[in-house]
């Protein structure tokens, strides 16, 4: 690439002196690029290393994992650690629980965020300003700070220790409303008016005209919400005490602490951590583009 660029310049008649001058920074640039690659490769490897360490430690025997210096490649691959770990706690159930709860939350958030965003962008009413302000403030205050009173509210509603409680208390997110509002603002109001002239209700306009137009925002919102909820730990752990209802993070944490596993069955613990994160890493590999796109949108959300 570089060579052809230089020879092109010579052939278009630039003086020899000029080409000479160009060559020095070019070698410098090449070296710079090489250093960039090297640095990036090293940093990326370092970032990926904990994942490798988790997976590989899951294959070691208990003796080997307690060896110093640690081995970077297990002497023998003990697949049975993974099987043991999988069987010593209901991980399949935990993962299914998390997936189900996260999916339900995504569904509710799509519905209520869309309706709220539609009202805020394409309907006229008195409370509009107040509501927008309320949501803006909601973005700034960490929800973890109100976990205690929310817990009491759920207990008053007799929804502790149930998925209903978990789903209902997570069914609205200020972030999702923001994100969808942003997308709806891009949709021309004339479309809504045209729909109204045709006699369509607001509800119909929202779901048959506008929603299909902002599919990609929905995709981003669903992915981000799903990942967040699947990984959620603090709140689900507080309100679901029944071990059968536990979500995957809480289940993993119990496995880590209980049954003398703390520091004793490390290969199994590492194996369990590895299969807990596997579905997310796979999801991420397939939906990377959409997830990265979320950054673009999130940044846009804040500008308004």
């Amino acid at each position, binding site marked *: 690439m570089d060579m052809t660029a230089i020879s092109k310049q010579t052939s278009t008649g630039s003086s020899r002196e000029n080409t000479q001058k160009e060559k020095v920074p070019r070698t410098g640039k090449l070296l710079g690029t090489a250093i*960039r690659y090297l*640095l*990036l490769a090293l*940093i*990326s*490897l370092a*970032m*990926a290393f*904990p994942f490798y360490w*988790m997976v590989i*430690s899951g294959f070691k025997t208990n003796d080997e*994992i307690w060896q110093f*210096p640690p081995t970077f490649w297990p002497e023998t691959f003990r697949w049975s650690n993974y099987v043991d770990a999988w069987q010593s706690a209901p991980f399949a159930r935990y993962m299914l629980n998390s997936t189900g709860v996260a999916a339900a939350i995504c569904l509710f958030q799509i519905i209520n965020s869309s*309706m*709220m965003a539609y*009202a*805020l962008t394409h*309907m*006229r*009413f008195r409370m509009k300003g107040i*509501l927008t302000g*309320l*949501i803006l403030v*909601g973005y*700034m205050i*960490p*929800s*973890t*700070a*109100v*976990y*205690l*009173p929310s817990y*009491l*509210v759920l207990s008053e509603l007799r929804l502790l220790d149930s998925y209903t409680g978990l789903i*209902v208390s997570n069914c*609205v997110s200020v972030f999702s409303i923001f994100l969808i509002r942003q997308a709806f603002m891009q949709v021309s109001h004339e479309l809504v008016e045209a729909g109204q002239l045709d006699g369509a209700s607001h509800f119909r306009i929202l779901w048959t005209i506008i929603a299909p137009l902002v599919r990609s925002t929905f995709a981003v919102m669903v992915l981000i919400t799903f*990942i967040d909820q699947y*990984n959620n*730990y*603090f709140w689900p752990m*507080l309100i679901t005490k029944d071990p059968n209802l536990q979500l*995957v*993070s*809480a289940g*993993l*944490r119990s496995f880590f602490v209980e049954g003398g596993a703390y520091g004793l069955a490390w290969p199994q*613990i*590492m194996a369990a*951590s590895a299969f*807990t*994160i596997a579905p*997310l*890493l796979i*999801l991420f590999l397939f939906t990377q583009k959409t997830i*990265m796109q979320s*950054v673009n949108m999130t*940044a846009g959300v*804040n*500008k308004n």
Partner: protein
Amino acid sequence: MRVKLWRETEAILFTLPALVPLLVFWLGPLGYIVYLSFTDWDFMSPDKLFVGLENYSYLLTNSEFYQSLKVTLLFGLGSVIPTIVGGLGLAMLMNSRIKSSGLFRTLLFSPWVTPTVAVSIAWSWIFEPEVGLANLMLGWVGVSPIGWLRDADWALVAVLIVTLWKSIGWSMVFYLVALRNLPSDLLEAASIDSAGSWDKFRSITLPLISPTTFFLSIILTIQSLQAYDQINVMTQGGPAGSTRTLLYMYYQSAFESFNVGEASAIAVVIILICVLLSGISFLLSRRLVHY
């Protein structure tokens, strides 16, 4: 008239599915926790005893509270600044037509996607003092082993390393977008004026990406105030309170000591910090951020 009334009603109906849960699980609790902070209650007794400002005066004379405040501040600075600087650094490294940048991006971003609990468990093994990888690597450069999570001087550093590892790729992606949107003609014009790369960076790039920096610093600060999972798995606030942030202290006094009043007062302090920071950042953004 009836049409107008219907229009108002219909709009309100549209907001209800989001508004009701917001009121029940967010705005209501916000008011409730302020009330609870003026009471003495243990979850069990039928009556909440009104004690006025006693919880607050207790906090303000309690050394554990100041310790937590200090940890929260250290945790905030120690996570926000490196995440921003590191993320920008990585984005600058990736910005100039690097082949396979997609691969690098995937590797750097993946920690953000994974459950904090699972990765914190793996990290706590890396920080194991006797046989852990961290001490092996320190040994390679001739540094004697560190107690990491068991040492009050190092536990916060270890927790910060994990936090930084989780979020640096995330902030990098934000900066990648911002750098891609820089007007190239402006940078070229500066090159023609023979501006050095540092000058270009300082007087063009940095101001133009300031909205991203501003956005990240707010979000990351709020995230740092909410950090819980990694602390719970790795240190549970210890050793000797060295990793007990305000949020963690709030959790412990509420759900371990069942001291609702004190916990609520701590939560109110956290909320006040957020309001204060939002106010400051709003004022700062008017002066420093160039849109």
